[in-house]
């Protein structure tokens, strides 16, 4: 077709391990215990997501990004991390955060619009949401690089979407990680859409995985709705990063079953038929079938699990509401906290001006 110019010809095949009916595609030895844990977290994440949506619709919470459909991609991947590894999320990783032990009440307080929900323990290695798309990626490279220079073998998992691959920061981050050999696993959840922009209009490349090759970085595509396949691929990437400092990118093919955020109306731009099709590939259902087949799960256990989750969520929301009422009593001067280690002179003066006015208003 062309004499001198060569065309991209990527050879990626999405790795799959678990058929939609829950049977194993290959005779892998599997870690059923971990899959059970993943299942529980996926289910919990799904129910939590549903509750968030309800609370948001009732006006109790602000805008948020549901994860429905992406549980396997993010929880399967996060499950391959050690506790001292870092998780650097975008804004659609509630599932991964829950796996990493995030406190639901904290998340609720944050989503209700309170900075206090982000009260992390010092040095916490699961970071809060990053809103500016792809901007977390160069930072992830830096975190990874500093740890490695210090001789640590902790690695970094950095999460982002298909849309994020278009940003300059994606490019610079992967290039830096490649050159510096920063141990980062770049986890791309390709959920088909960036708000209303379909994957095909985001970039002319056949796959997102091939983008990693531009940086000398290995990559894989994986069925992102297949928790086991995600784990297998991620384990390999994590090992490479940990042992060799070699970054890698994973493109998890998944689907955003819900609205982009609660401010979005997807009926304006996508065919509901697409959503239905993906319903058949539900990531939770697949693992459930496997667990049932392996006698790790039955209806009674499922019911108990659902109840336990419901209770946990109820308790978290109750706690969050309590905390929020207490927060509502705190003075507005809290906005001056944590700007610097030591407030600067102008900030001290402004804080005083503010509280004088608050007091005057309350008089």
């Amino acid at each position, binding site marked *: 077709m062309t004499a001198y110019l060569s065309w991209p010809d990527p050879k990626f095949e999405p790795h799959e391990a678990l058929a939609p009916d829950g049977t194993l595609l290959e005779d892998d030895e599997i870690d059923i215990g971990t899959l059970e844990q993943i299942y529980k977290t996926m289910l919990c994440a799904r129910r939590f997501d549903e509750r968030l949506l309800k609370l948001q619709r009732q006006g109790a919470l*602000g*805008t948020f990004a549901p994860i429905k459909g992406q549980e396997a991609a993010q929880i399967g991947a996060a499950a391959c991390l050690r506790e001292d590894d870092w998780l650097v999320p975008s*804004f659609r990783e509630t599932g991964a955060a829950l796996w990493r032990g995030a406190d639901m009440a904290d998340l609720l307080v*944050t989503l*209700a*619009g*309170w*900075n206090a*929900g982000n009260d992390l323990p010092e040095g916490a290695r699961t970071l809060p*949401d990053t*809103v*500016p*798309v*792809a901007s977390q990626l160069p930072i992830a490279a830096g975190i990874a690089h500093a740890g490695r220079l210090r001789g640590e073998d902790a690695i970094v998992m950095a999460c982002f979407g298909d*849309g*994020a691959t*278009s*940003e*300059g*920061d994606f490019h610079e981050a992967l290039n830096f990680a490649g050159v510096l050999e920063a141990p980062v696993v770049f986890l791309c959840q390709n959920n088909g859409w*960036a*708000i*209303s*922009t379909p994957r095909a*209009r*985001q*970039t002319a490349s056949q796959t997102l995985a091939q983008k990693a090759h531009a940086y000398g970085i290995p990559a894989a595509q994986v069925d992102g709705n297949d928790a086991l396949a995600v784990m297998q691929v991620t384990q390999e990437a994590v090992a490479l990063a940990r042992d060799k400092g070699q970054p890698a990118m994973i493109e998890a093919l998944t689907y955003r079953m819900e609205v982009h955020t609660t*401010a*979005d109306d997807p009926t*304006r*731009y996508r065919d509901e038929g697409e959503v239905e099709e993906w319903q058949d590939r539900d990531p939770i259902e697949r693992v459930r079938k496997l667990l049932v087949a392996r006698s790790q799960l039955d209806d009674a256990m499922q019911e108990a699990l659902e109840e336990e989750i419901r209770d946990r969520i109820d308790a978290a929301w109750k706690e969050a509401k309590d905390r*929020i009422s207490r*927060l509502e009593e705190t003075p*507005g001067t*809290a*906005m*001056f906290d944590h*700007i610097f280690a030591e407030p*600067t002179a*102008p*900030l001290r003066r*402004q804080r005083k001006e*503010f509280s004088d*006015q608050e007091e*005057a*208003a309350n008089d």
Partner: protein
Amino acid sequence: MTDASDGLTMVDAINRALHEAMAEDDTTAVMGQDVGVNGGVFRVTEGLIDDYGVARVIDTPLAESGIVGLAIGMAMNGARPIAEMQFSGFSYYALAQIENHAARIRWRTRGAHTVPLVIRMPYGAGVRALEHHSESREVFYGHMPGLKTVIPATPARAHALLHAAIRDPDPVIFMEPKAVYRQMREPIADDAEPAQIGTSRVVRRGKDLTLVSYGAMLHRALEAAETLAAEDIDIEVIDIETIAPLDAETIAKSVGQTGRLLIVNEAPPSYGAAGEIAMRVIEQEFYALRVPIRRVCGWDVHVPFFAREQTYLPSVDRIRGAARAMMAD
């Protein structure tokens, strides 16, 4: 979509200006994230793609520098692009393209090339949004030579000013106070004229104090003025509308009569717009000033998550307090 009889919201007014501009001049094009099929996350570009197609209404990849660079190039090659930054908090990714190219190409090429480009961006707090969706950084743009920066405060002004911005032969940053997007309605005549960029607008006459504001805060300034009338404090309110080039003459003239200047805006105070307004008035009407110029702004902090964003924003009370204090000074 809106019953025009009770007037248009700012979203609808801007949408209408866009429709009119696209109809009038087929070199006009709109580009940005989700501006096409989705009609924009705030619906500002609603319907454009139906009427003008994908060639003139471009759903772009997710990359702000790319969007502005694309628009600059199109402007250099015969188009009149209107680019959208989905939120001003993401416009920083395009700041280099704006400062290094949009603002300089006419100058660098000695007029051989021009950049008749409008960059629209919703800005400001008050709609209970996520982090990075509430900032006011108009001075970044106001400080750059070669740029004009416009902030309308009402639907009709947004309509008129956007028309002016689109006609302008040079790049215009058009910042839309998203808190006003659906807050009020105003009728817009079918034959509404484009506004003039570079002039401020006296929106309320008064003789005791000159209150200068813009964007969403103008409405709080006006409310403060209205309610202080009951206390016999007669406030003149000026909507500056054009951040750059700043029409300080209108403000100075007013201060020449009132002797008092109070500036209200929502950006952090340090190195914000109030300093420039104050400085320009001092240069022109220092001796008319009877009491110190004051400002009521946000604070030198990040806009808190939404539960507390109102503690950040200048309240009507704070504005009133400052005005009263100035009358007592």
